[in-house]
């Protein structure tokens, strides 16, 4: 069954999770994502699920650890400062290889920051905000429909690799309203999880969910296993979207709200005859480095547009490995770049270039 409905991004995170078979939500309120727990508090009882408002973010992430460790599809959501509080739990979860989904509807920082949208949690999400050598898989939706679709993919991918998945959006994506198609996933089935810790059964080996590795060899082996898994994920799970990159001289690399604003600016610059394209990473980790390297080899130059002081630009620079220029345009402290500002940045990038041809 598919139905059309006007949804806010935050409602889409929640309903998208329910449609994906998530039946356990643990969270603690923080603006601008409060509609997620609020929606879940109403919907979870309707579908026979569990909603718990925990006493803190630390408590909520550890409840996810427990429910995920018992094999359930479980999630939490928060916003920037709340996500910082969850980092210890995320590191444990990644190490214990417990599948779960964590939604970050990011707001302006650093510190307590403000309530307005931001993309300044990129480093925290993709480089490992907690301690140790681990990775979350990070999805970055660019529309309310994509929030719904990626919530499903997030739970499937988490189970597939026994790994935490973060869905990272800025506050505006959480608050904006768009028409969406809400459907039941026909292939929805939660895989068997023989590793899950669900109590002792005679004849069944004991399942242990743990992140402790006191013996050095044991700990190194665990890390080698994790790293091998991350290489497999890098090989198989990269997602991105391209628009007009083939003939482009300049490629704007942007995700989420920045990509939406950039798209309008690119159309405007194209109308002026400038060859500009859009490259939108959908997975921020694994990052679409290979494809960006190919585009750099093909002679394209790049500009990242971010709602931060410039974070993803580091990954773009690593990907192109000095073979191409990488420029930056950003607004931060919770500000959203305007179409005009991005357009002007694009036009400026073309200044004085055409004469050399």
């Amino acid at each position, binding site marked *: 069954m598919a139905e*059309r*409905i*006007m*949804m*806010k991004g935050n*409602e889409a995170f929640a*309903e998208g999770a329910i449609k994906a078979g998530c039946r356990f939500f643990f969270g603690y309120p923080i*603006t*601008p994502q*409060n*509609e997620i727990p*609020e*929606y879940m508090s109403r919907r979870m009882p309707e579908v026979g699920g569990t909603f718990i408002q925990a006493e803190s973010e630390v408590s909520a992430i550890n409840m996810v650890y427990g429910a995920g460790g018992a094999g359930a599809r479980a999630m939490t959501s928060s916003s920037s400062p709340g996500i910082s509080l969850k980092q210890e739990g995320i590191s444990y979860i990644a190490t214990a290889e417990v599948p779960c989904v964590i939604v970050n509807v990011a707001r302006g920082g650093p510190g307590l920051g*403000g*309530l*307005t949208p931001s993309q300044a949690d990129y480093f925290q999400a993709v480089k490992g905000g907690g301690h140790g050598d681990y990775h979350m898989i990070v999805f970055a939706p660019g529309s309310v429909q994509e929030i719904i679709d990626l919530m499903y993919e997030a739970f499937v991918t988490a189970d597939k690799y026994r790994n935490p998945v973060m869905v990272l959006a800025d*506050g*505006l994506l959480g*608050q*904006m*309203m*768009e*028409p969406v198609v809400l459907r039941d996933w026909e292939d929805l089935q939660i895989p068997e999880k023989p590793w899950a810790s669900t109590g002792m059964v005679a004849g069944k080996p004991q399942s242990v969910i743990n992140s402790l590795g006191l013996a050095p060899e044991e700990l190194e082996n665990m890390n080698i296993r994790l790293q091998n898994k991350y290489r497999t994920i890098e090989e198989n799970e990269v997602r991105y979207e391209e628009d007009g990159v083939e003939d482009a001289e300049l490629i704007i690399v942007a995700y989420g709200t920045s990509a*939406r*604003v950039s*798209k*309008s600016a690119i*159309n405007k610059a194209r109308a002026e005859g400038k060859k500009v394209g859009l490259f939108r990473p959908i997975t921020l980790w694994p990052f679409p480095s290979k494809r960006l390297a190919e585009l750099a080899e093909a002679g394209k130059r790049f500009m990242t547009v971010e709602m931060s002081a410039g974070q993803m630009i580091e990954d773009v620079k690593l990907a192109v490995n000095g073979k191409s220029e990488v420029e930056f345009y950003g607004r931060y402290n919770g500000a959203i770049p305007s*179409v005009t500002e991005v357009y002007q940045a694009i036009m400026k990038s073309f200044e004085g270039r055409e004469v050399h041809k």
Partner: protein
Amino acid sequence: MEKRITVIGGAYGSGKTEFSMAYALEQAKKGYQVGLIDLDIVNPYFRSRDQAEELAHLGINVVSTEPGLENSDIPALSPRIYALFQDQAYQRVIFDVGGDPVGARALGRFNPYFALAGYEYWMVINPFRPGTRSVQETTELIGKLQTASRLQITGLVGNINLGRETTPELWLEGLPLIETISDILEIPIVYQMVSSQFAPMLRPVIPVKYDVFEVDLRMRPSWMDM
């Protein structure tokens, strides 16, 4: 039907703020002195206070929280709200209330003033939004809004749309829900609100018995509909 005080409420994302601003502008154009009270203490995005400066130029006094706290997450109400209640120089006072019963609760403390001054309480309904998609859930929401606000809903404002995917067929698909609610609860439909962008397409299918209220959407950046 028009009273000095009009309260605009409803579910989250039903179109309350867009309607409140457009209605305030219309009243100002008619020559009334208009005050718009942004009572949304639930959600810090897409609020009428974001447009306070532009609206002031158009003759509308927007009262929200105390200056400097506009972007805070503090559920604090300005004492200037009482001034608008009592200052008869304001011929039209419009309350733009936060969504759902949690938003409507902020109205409760003003109960003695509403009782004294009289009011209209209009509920904006989009049948394509969560929470108002069936007669049952909409009726339940109305009950909860009335309990939380301690006011009676006196009018319905239809806001039938699916954003950029709105069509005449879709508008007609959404209409029966609002008409049924109006019939069952005996609450009149005061307006059918349509985005001015879609008005030429929708007007031909809207029954003539309805007052169509055209709204220039003010809160939505253009890139959102690319």
